[in-house]
């Protein structure tokens, strides 16, 4: 079965990002496919490489990046939600005259059409967070 995942909460404050990650791992372990993971609302904070949690805690952002690398997962951060919250890739930083970018490896910034497409293309769109 083909799944899409939507993450609507930032890391650490709520468990949603963790649950979404573990769900994704379970989907892959069971031999199913992940079409896309879409980050919206505060969920875009899952995609900043500047995240620096204490060493004895899980690194939620690195965990996503590794997942994308190991399983070729499409991690998409909503551009409008990201700009409001200060998540930028090189292109967006340049376009908006900012002095740096912070997108984490494996993530890409794109539009809301990617969420609708994820809903159309997948057999199930599973949403995490409020």
């Amino acid at each position, binding site marked *: *079965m083909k799944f899409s995942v*939507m993450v609507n909460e930032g890391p650490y404050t709520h468990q949603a990002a963790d649950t979404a990650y573990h769900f994704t791992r379970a989907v892959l372990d069971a031999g199913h496919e992940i079409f896309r993971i879409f980050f*919206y*609302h505060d969920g875009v904070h899952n995609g900043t490489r500047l995240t620096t949690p204490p060493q004895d805690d899980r690194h939620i952002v690195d965990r996503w990046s590794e997942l994308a690398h190991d399983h070729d997962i499409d991690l998409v951060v909503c551009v*409008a*939600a990201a700009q*409001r919250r200060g998540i930028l890739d090189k292109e967006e930083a340049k376009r908006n005259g900012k002095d740096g970018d912070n997108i984490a490896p494996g993530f890409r910034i794109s*539009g*809301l*059409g990617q*969420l*609708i*497409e994820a*809903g*159309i293309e997948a*057999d199930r*769109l599973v*949403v995490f967070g*409020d």
Partner: protein
Amino acid sequence: MKQIDWSSLVINESGKVVKKFMYVNRHAPHGTIYPLEGLEVVLIGAAFDQDVSMAFIGDGVFQLNKGQDTADSGMKNVAPTYGALGDYEVTKLYVEQESLDERGLELNDLMNLTWEDEEENWAEKPSIRVVSRAQLSDLLEQQDVILNF
């Protein structure tokens, strides 16, 4: 795992799958960003020619209240956007009766939202459809994709 019943999916003239998308709005306007970012999804989604509807439950019914004014709070007023939904062919706005009752609201308190029916000589029709909790439950059951805001 349960198999998908593909027979329930509609295919349009260009051979594309048309799914039933429902956007469920649960938050009061302006207190959180959910109504605003939800509307952004609805407007972008309108370009995908899917079978779209919106539902307003709980404090979400306040989103359709008449006469919203955010000047004093400095929040961006999203209320005018609902008036444009008809032009985006978002014409089914289900409002839960019980949610209205619980908040002392009635249909008259809500904005007069309409859409023009091309098939009936552009007749103006109301977009808001007040439904019972039980009816909304049935509608949710029929959806392929549900997004909560």
